[in-house]
């Protein structure tokens, strides 16, 4: 204790000396501000250096280049029977390709937007002229479980984890999920083939 006390005293002496020296050398009260500025600038540089060193450590956790290389897949729609769905894997997630029956399409189209939590028309969710095929990412917008096909109160999907009900257009109708099942970017490369991604 005694030793550390004496070191403190020394430091204080040095500081007093330097203050007096500066005072003698340059005169004027501005020096105190300038000195403060130098210390603040040095401190800011230290913080900046810390942030610059931390950033690569944080950034390395973002998706790596190979992960980011977005994959695309093609899918032959003739593999889906009417009234059924096929699950394919895209970017580590399931994608539902559903061949809807006329009754299911009718139900989806006839639903008024006012009945929807996340209003979107059925036409916005399918490609023109291909309204029988619905392509959605099979990941519940609540917490990411895979909803089960042809279940729930609205005949679309039902998420077993926390009870979200989706309709035949993949729109959220009941339960904790906030959004409709996401429609991925896809296009028809021919009448019976889609390219997802």
């Amino acid at each position, binding site marked *: 204790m005694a030793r550390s006390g004496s070191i403190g005293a020394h430091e204080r002496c040095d500081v007093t000396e330097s203050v007096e020296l500066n005072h003698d050398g340059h005169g004027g009260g501005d020096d105190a501000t300038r000195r403060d500025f130098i210390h603040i600038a040095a401190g800011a540089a230290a913080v900046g250096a810390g942030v610059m060193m931390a950033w690569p450590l944080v950034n390395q956790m973002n998706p790596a280049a190979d992960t980011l290389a977005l994959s695309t897949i093609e899918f032959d729609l003739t593999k889906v029977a009417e009234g059924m769905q096929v699950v394919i894997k895209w970017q580590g997630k399931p994608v539902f390709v559903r061949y809807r029956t006329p009754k299911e399409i009718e139900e989806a189209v006839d639903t008024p937007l006012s009945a929807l939590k996340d209003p979107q028309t059925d036409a916005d969710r399918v490609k023109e002229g291909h309204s029988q095929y619905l392509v959605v990412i099979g990941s519940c917008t609540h917490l990411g479980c895979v909803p089960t096909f042809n279940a729930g109160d609205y005949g679309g999907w039902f*998420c077993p984890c926390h009870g979200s009900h989706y309709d035949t257009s993949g729109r959220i109708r009941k339960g904790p999920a906030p959004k409709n099942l996401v429609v991925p970017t896809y296009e028809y490369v021919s009448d019976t083939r889609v390219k997802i991604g």
Partner: protein
Amino acid sequence: MSDHESTYVPKTGIEKWLDSRLPIIRFGADYMSLPTPRNLNYWYTFGGILTLCLMVQIVTGIVLAMHYVPNTELAFASVERIMRDVNGGWLIRYVHANGASMFFIAVYLHMLRGLYYGSYKAPREIIWILGCVIFFLMIATAFLGYVLPWGQMSFWGAEVITNLIGAIPMIGEPVLIWLRGGPAIDNATLNRFFSLHYLLPFVIFGVVVLHLWALHTSGQNNPAGILIPKERTPKDTLPFHPYFTVKDGFAIILFLILFAVFVFYMPNALGHADNYIPANPLQTPAHIVPEWYMLPFYAILRAIPDKFGGVLAMFGAIGVLFILPWLDTSRVRSMRYRPTMKVFFLIFLVVGVGLGWCGAQLPDAQVVPGMPSFQLLDGQLNSYLWLTRLLTAYYFAFFFIIMPWVGLKETPLPVPHSISEPVLDGGIPEKKG
């Protein structure tokens, strides 16, 4: 450490030499002779039990990491290889897996003890807050560890819990992708979870040191809730060793018996069978449930119909513990002298267990089968959804309404002036019979 006069006298030359350079023996000796309230009961042994749990988890974890492979293709098989081919690997892995549950049993009892005897009240707020930090880190560590065997529950647990972060408005989605290292839970996620699971126990260890430092600065609380350092008299205290080392030791052995029953006779009873199915990103298990120690918080998450609201409530349920020292308005620490609060505490216990029960049920299932019910807002009244909401309401009311209000209104029983008073006068009142 601060108020306790050191009684250590170095005897040999070597001890003197060491003591003037690194007084580590003095530190240990002072720790062992620390004056400890003589009325500490068995609820006060969980600190020692928890220290043991942390050590067991760190040691078995380091050993398991020598054999485990953090890769989505190999993780499941590497865990099974530990169970089948590594010498005694089944024992180490079962100890580690059940050790997590034992750790949580002990930490919950430790926290409830603190709650009951008012161990969070001044001057012990920092001890309590550090304890809450440890609890939060334990939850994080347990979650990360549960992902590593890469079974179905591992994968879908990771999916659901990381998605909670995605619920945060604006920054949720980028943070989610940053955390997972890709659009979905995959190899990058497993690898970093392994790294963090290895790291966090050492962070916990560091916070435990601070927790003990703070404890030895403010002095231990005790069942009577009286006695702060300056009031200590030799009549109130006993040296930590041998009185409390032997008491803690006995409790630790009883705890180990419970631990051993699980490890050797029902090693998978606390887990879920689905976690022996390798992870499949295309198929969610029919019924996702977290490990039992997360169930009450999981129930609170599901009680709120809004996604972000649910996440806030769940974290709020842990967060409220941090401000507990300022929610309790009572001048009396121990609930032993607070008959009204004691009743609310017992209800709180039941509510906590009830929330855990609800967390394991399907929200739409009937609580009382066959009982007539009616639709209330978004669910049947006779459903776990509404029971969970009722219990959640009590959970928060206990901290935000009951604690401040009862503290102001109730008339506590007379509190003895010192620990030695009731002890030496023939029994602490409530212990009669």
